[in-house]
């Protein structure tokens, strides 16, 4: 079943200016429900921009992003926020709120989802225990190591029990142990029928992919089935 479809998707920064950047140019791809899609390509090829557009983090300059057949480009701000509640993001630079504790970073995204406080706490504790940082519950995010921050970021993405998990270079900043945890999570998501869209150069991650999309200079190179 088709979950995402992009039609002639373009994202230009500073459009019309001399310094216009064509981050994505006429990209049409489709992503099935339950698939593990890995977007690869050299730096600056538009991988992060593609998952940002799929994840409704920004709007396309031209073309369409369809999720369950619905054009995200014409959705209102409120509708996009509701779409994002079905998604979980693991950003390359973690994007934790530094002055929040680990616990707050995980439970804050659950507040607009209407999840009761006790359930929020339960999920946060469970995930942190699973990732081996249950002792850091009340530590500020900016006091954690890079690996620990990445684990918190993964826990935050999974806490909302999303339909789709997006991860931008999830293993690039990780130690071996955290990388192994993430790969295990990815396998479990796939087994649970969840969809994952990742950008990565890591062969271990690519090996888990059911679909690989390759980008170069903002254009689609190949989409092997």
């Amino acid at each position: 079943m088709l979950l995402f479809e992009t039609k002639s998707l373009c994202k230009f920064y500073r459009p019309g200016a001399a310094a216009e950047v064509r981050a994505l140019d006429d990209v049409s791809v489709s992503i099935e429900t339950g698939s593990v899609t890995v977007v690869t390509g050299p730096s600056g090829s538009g991988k992060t921009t593609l998952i940002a557009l799929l994840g409704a983090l920004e709007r396309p300059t031209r073309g369409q992003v369809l999720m369950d057949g619905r054009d995200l480009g014409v959705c209102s701000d409120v509708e996009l926020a509701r779409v994002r509640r079905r998604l979980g993001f693991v950003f390359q630079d973690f994007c934790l709120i530094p002055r929040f504790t680990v616990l707050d970073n995980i439970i804050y995204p659950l507040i607009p989802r209407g999840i009761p406080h006790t359930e929020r706490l339960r999920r946060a504790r469970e995930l942190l225990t699973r990732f081996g940082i249950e002792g850091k519950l009340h530590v500020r995010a900016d006091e954690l190591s890079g690996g620990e921050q990445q684990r918190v970021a993964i826990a935050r993405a999974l806490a909302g029990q999303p339909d789709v998990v997006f991860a931008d270079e999830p293993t690039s900043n990780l130690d071996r142990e955290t990388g192994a945890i993430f790969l295990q999570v990815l396998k479990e998501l796939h087994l649970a029928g969840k969809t994952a869209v990742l950008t990565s150069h890591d062969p271990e991650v690519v090996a888990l992919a059911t679909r690989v999309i390759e980008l170069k200079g903002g254009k689609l190179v190949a989409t092997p089935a």
Partner: protein
Amino acid sequence: MHPLRSLVSVCALVAVILPYLVGMALAQGLEAEAEASVQFGADLLVTGVQFGRTVPLPLEAIKQVRAVDGVKGALPRIVGEVVLGKDRVHAVLVGLAVEDAPAWSACIDGELPKRDSRYEIVVGTGLARRLGLKIGSVLPPFYRNDKEGERLLRVVGVFKADAPLWQAHLMLTSFDTAAIVFDQRGAATDLLVSCQPGKQDEVHRAILQRLSFTSADGQGVIRPKVTTRADLLVMLPRGVLHREGVFNLHFVLALVVAILVLLVTSGVGLTERRREIGILKATGWQTDEILLRGLAESFALSLSGACIALGLAWLWLRVGNGFGIAGFFLAGVDAVPDFPIPFRITPVPALLAFVLAFVIVLTGTLVSAWRAAIVAPREAIR
């Protein structure tokens, strides 16, 4: 809440609200004291009018007023300004038959000037401190009297520190002594008239309609002017309200500067705040939910600021005795008042202070939150 931004905002709020609360509490306290003074004063105050101006009354007026039906008593009084010492300290000299006003003695250390004695005075606390006077001190002649000559005045009493603040620069003496000091024998500046219960309006009308007095030179006619307690209640706070108005004007100017400062301080941690809002939006928060969060944050900050300012205002007035600000409302009072300053912290200024704080913080918070919340999450995070 951003800790540094919150701290800066609360401090700026307190700096703005505190003088306002103190000023308003002082103004209200003074007004209340003025009202209380009037309530305990005479029923009617009779003065003379000539050419449309207030003039002294001849003493023959006392007999005429006392003869009016419903009048219980009429006490002549002389009130005038004198200037003392090389520092030219301004004081108000009040001369009256002090034994007819027993309420005075309760707030005096020493004794009241005796009826038959001359050149005895009771001085206010502010004046006593400024001129170094105490009971038994003598005051060199500060007036000119060609008939009686100039004499030393002896201090027989000093007002207590907890007496009403109106005594601070007051000199109380006998009617005769005041007449000599001002060289105005046979005249009083006004009459304090007390009426039988329920007869005040009747007496008021009778004095106005039936009485007129001959001036001291026997040529002109002096008409009476009657001020009732109700008139005084309206007139007395006018001075306080004027000063309150001037204070408010200064405050508005300070407020404009403060709002600008707060708008700048609301930019403290703006980049971090923008990124936070981007992260919240990326994880499912809506713009209105983020703004609501900003609203709650503003409410908490302004409530904290207002409460701290309220507490500090109370301390400033109660412990600090209006240090530095009391002189703004009370003429002749130094930076360190030497008598208890009256104050009343009422709900309206306190509520207004909170609303003011809320509006200021809300402006700073919501503007920055709104600007971050309306951009795409990826842009805000970047």
